[in-house]
């Protein structure tokens, strides 16, 4: 008598969609709910509030992208905050009193510089064999020191006519939306679909297997860090445009690092690597800046929002861990 094992039933399209994009959909719903709460909270909700939310979270969104690509490749980049502060200070120092065109050129140079610094970091990680968390932590010290050499005290500036082009004017949310969309569509999507992008996901999900199938792990890691540097540079430019000056304080970098990791995790990129995309982290960055605003609107102590941010981060990750546990045991 032969025992027939029933064939596993093919997973339905709905299940696949839920599995693949379920988390992202959750983030979208969360963001929508928060927007509704905010709109109810402020009766005069309009362009100004929208601009505050989107332009205010733009730097964090770029930083979350920078952290996201590295996390997708199975690593972590502890230097994104320090490098963003560095980019901010370099921009502010050299853009002060320049015209629009020079400022744009400086911006391009800063993005290139950040990409190079970040790629060097990736190179050191692959050559030395020191864990990425240690390398990026140590180099973030070097970067923070260099920032103080470039700009010892807060100051600098940016061409006044460049600012509204990047972060929008007083009540103009469109530029920020356009830039974020462009970054996702023109940088991230082509990268994700290219061989380089597939290699990034491959080394993130199973480094040994990727190596055995012919992926150059070292080159892929370096490329990932270079792309991360590009996003960090953009975050630095946005910070300069938003604040209009450079601020070399190291604590800003630390807070930005924390938020970038939070946005990545909340955005559905698992820290073990190999899954997720960059749209989630961008939306999560907006969620993270909306929450304190809403809490302030309810008249809460601003310090409580710091606690809430940490608690939300922990709860979200716990929920994620719980979901994964359930899936594994099912």
């Amino acid at each position: 008598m032969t025992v027939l094992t029933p064939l596993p039933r093919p997973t339905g399209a709905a299940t696949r969609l839920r599995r693949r994009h379920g988390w992202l959909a959750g983030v979208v719903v969360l963001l929508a709910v928060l927007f509704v709460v905010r709109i109810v909270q402020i009766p005069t909700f309009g362009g100004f509030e929208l601009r505050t939310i989107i332009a205010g979270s733009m730097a964090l969104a770029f930083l979350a992208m920078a952290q996201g690509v590295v996390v997708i490749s199975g690593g972590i980049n502890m230097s994104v905050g320090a490098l963003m502060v560095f980019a901010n200070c370099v921009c502010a120092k050299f853009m002060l009193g320049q015209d629009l065109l020079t400022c744009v050129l400086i911006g391009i140079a800063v993005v290139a510089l950040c990409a190079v610094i970040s790629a060097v970091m990736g190179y050191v990680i692959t050559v030395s064999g020191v864990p990425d968390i240690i390398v990026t932590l140590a180099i973030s010290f070097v970067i923070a020191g260099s920032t103080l050499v470039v700009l010892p005290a807060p100051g600098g500036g940016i061409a006044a006519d460049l600012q509204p082009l990047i972060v929008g004017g007083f009540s103009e949310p469109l530029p920020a939306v356009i830039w974020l969309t462009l970054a996702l569509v023109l940088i991230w999507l082509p990268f994700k679909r290219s061989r380089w992008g597939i290699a990034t996901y491959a080394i993130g999900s199973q480094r040994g297997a990727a190596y055995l199938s012919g992926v150059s792990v070292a080159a892929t890691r370096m490329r990932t860090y270079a792309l991360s540097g590009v996003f960090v540079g953009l975050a630095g430019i946005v910070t300069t445009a938003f604040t209009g000056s450079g601020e070399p304080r190291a604590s800003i970098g630390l807070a930005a690092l924390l938020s970038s990791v939070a946005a990545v995790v909340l955005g559905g990129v698992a820290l073990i690597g190999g899954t997720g995309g960059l749209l989630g982290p961008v939306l999560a960055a907006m969620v993270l800046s909306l929450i304190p605003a809403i809490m302030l609107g309810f008249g809460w102590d601003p310090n409580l929002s710091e606690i809430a941010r940490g608690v939300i981060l922990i709860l979200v990750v716990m929920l994620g861990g719980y979901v994964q546990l359930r899936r594994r045991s099912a």
Partner: protein
Amino acid sequence: MTAATMAPTGESRGQRTARIMAEKPVIALLVVLAILYVITGVQDPTLFAPQGIRSVLLLACPLAILAAVQTVCMLTGGIDLSAAMIANFAAYVSANNAGLGPIASLGFAFLVGGAIGLINGIGVGVFRVNPLIMTLGMSSVLVGVITVGIVGDGFLSGSTTILSLVKSVGGGTLFGPIPLNSIVLALVAAILILGLGRTGLGRSIYATGDNESAGRLAGVRSWQVLIAVYVIAGLLAALAGLMFSGISGSVGPDQTNSYLLPSVAAAVIGGTSILGGTGGFGGTIVGALILTVLNRLLLGLETSDAVRQIIYGAIVLALAWFYVRVTGQRAD
């Protein structure tokens, strides 16, 4: 004796040195420490006097205990980035309750440390949250809690007095060049080194960090091990916070924050792998001494804080790189 354990014959002196270094990396670290100490001493001769030795030990001991937090966590493949905030919080709680007597005051401090560690442990052990995220999030929660506590008439807003016990143990002198806080370090070192090497929990910590699935199959309940590790980490962080407040004679909401990264660096330089399973507290103590002497060397240089920070980061990276070269323990 099997052939495998015998030293291969015909190896050159260089190969032999390399093998010994790879097997006992602490020797290489001690050489680095000695060289660094002599260089610093040439620049600042007081370092060879008892007072100079005392000043290095005085700062190295609390750093070593904060690095002990990272060591136990890293042995399981984790990290505790909330250690500095736990230390600040515990020192604050102790100073705030100094009026209740030393037992209650210290008791509250360790209670706070242990309780926060327990939450970290439940997150990491039961909910499988990445330790980096769990403790980073906890750190941001604690920043908020302390800030809320000390403003207005919050729960930490009362007067703060450092216990005389904490002051004398944290900043006093035992004899000659030996500060009193090295006794605390010696006790912690004895407990940790014996505990990690000889007890069931200690072996389970290594097993969890080395290969969690294999450990589980061998009967290690890794979630319990992780909870225990983070509770121990919380208690050690509270102890480090008390010792730092004993040196400075004051408390502050961000007093020990600048020691967080050095504490991770001390453990890494001391040979504890951040991936778990290898290392120990002995190397960490040497790592803490190296970083303290390095700091002293940089303070003596006539240069700006910015340049000092650059050199510090570069040297920490170089030391970590050197360690990987010597032992061959690559991360990938």
